């Protein structure tokens, strides 16, 4: 065998061994840590749901058990179908979308919509909580995104999220208009339905605006029911509420 061939074979063998060792290392780490990571992710989702309705204040750290207790005490997950009918967690209708309720003394205080939309670089995941009047935003949280930190990444910052509180998704005639991210600051004229934009992240704002509109459109049937009062504070929920958020 020529020296060149031995060199090549040596390269292939080395690459194979190195890949196997590294692959094994990664697989071991991933599989041993999977449970802990899933627990963290679940916990983080719960924190965000609780934050969106204001049950957890900013900058307050709670243990896993405290969060779990707060969550099961106050939040129930349901589904809604395309007519805005509320279905229990275990129903098997094909076209259903997830919804969470913040229940206080058996009445719906607020409803929470999962946000899953496209950003500039990746998915933006979060929650948007609406008051039981079906038109006022109670809170907005983001728990996962791929935007540039310091620019589009500001969507997860406190000032941007607090921007949403008290804004309306309807105009003065109570017609649906959604909530939009302004380019720059909001003006007095559009302050009801716009939030301040992030400088240097106009595109992230545009994607978020489009995404929120689409998602809120899907939930419009149920929002309409809240607005007309047919599911109001006195509404009794049928079926059993679920507490798992899969």
């Amino acid at each position: 065998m020529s020296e060149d061939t031995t060199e090549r074979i040596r390269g292939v063998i080395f690459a194979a061994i190195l890949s196997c060792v590294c692959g094994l290392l990664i697989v071991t780490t991933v599989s041993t840590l999977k449970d802990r990571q899933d627990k963290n992710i679940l916990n983080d989702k719960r924190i965000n749901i609780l934050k969106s309705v204001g049950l957890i204040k900013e900058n307050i750290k709670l243990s896993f058990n405290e969060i779990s207790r707060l969550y099961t005490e106050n939040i129930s997950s349901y589904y809604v179908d395309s007519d805005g009918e509320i279905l229990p967690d275990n129903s098997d209708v094909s076209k259903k979308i997830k919804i969470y309720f913040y229940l206080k003394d058996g009445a719906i205080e607020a409803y929470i919509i999962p946000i899953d939309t496209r950003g500039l670089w990746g998915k933006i995941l979060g929650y948007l909580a609406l008051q039981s009047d079906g038109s006022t935003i109670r809170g907005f949280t983001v728990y996962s995104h791929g935007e540039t930190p310091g620019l589009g990444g500001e969507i997860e910052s406190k000032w941007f999220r607090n921007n949403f509180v008290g804004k309306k998704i309807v105009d003065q005639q109570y017609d649906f208009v959604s909530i939009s991210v302004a380019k720059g600051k909001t003006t007095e004229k559009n302050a009801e339905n716009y939030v301040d934009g992030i400088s240097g992240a106009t595109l992230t704002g545009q994607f978020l605006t489009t995404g929120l509109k689409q998602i809120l459109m899907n939930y419009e049937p149920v929002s309409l029911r809240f607005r007309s009062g047919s599911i109001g504070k006195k509404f009794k929920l049928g079926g059993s509420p679920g507490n798992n958020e899969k």
Partner: protein
Amino acid sequence: MKNKYYSIITEGIFSNNPVAKQVLGICSALAVTVKFKTAFVMGFSLTFVMMFSGLTISLLRNLIPRNIRIIAELIIIATLVIIIDQVLKAYLYDISKQLSVFIGLIITNCIVMGRAESYALMNKPFESFCDGLGNGIGYSFILLVVAFIRELLGSGSIAGFKVIPDYLYKIGYQDMGLMLLAPGAFIVIGLIVWLMNSFEKGTK
């Protein structure tokens, strides 16, 4: 002995600074220097990865065949970064959320590859470890200076705290929007490279 390692480290920080002298890692330096905090986190994680990638590659330097060395380096760096990422996700979830895309950026950061290629492959493990530390600090140092200037001029704050008083805004002061965008970072980095080079010439 102490002086040798000391000089390896200081070389990475000043006379052979990765950003200012080797002009490596510019892309991440542009991306993460809008805010002081993100620059700090990126600098810290990169330094950490640099030290251990230098160490590992240097330990394997006599085994790695020359013709596939870049692939081998990349596999080692990527494995290291993924493992760190996984551990952070399991035990320090909040920090891992802050790091978000940075972890991925570390793998592709040319400083890590550059130092592995030009230093770790030819030097002893502990020296490579120090070289990683020095270059990591050198990179972080530039990042922090750039981020400080960009955040101060672009957002009127330092590490998240407002420093420009409200009355200045009232009489017409405005934050410099250019500083938030990539061109702002280019200008600041350019000025720093110029400053560092002329300072060095002065001391010679």
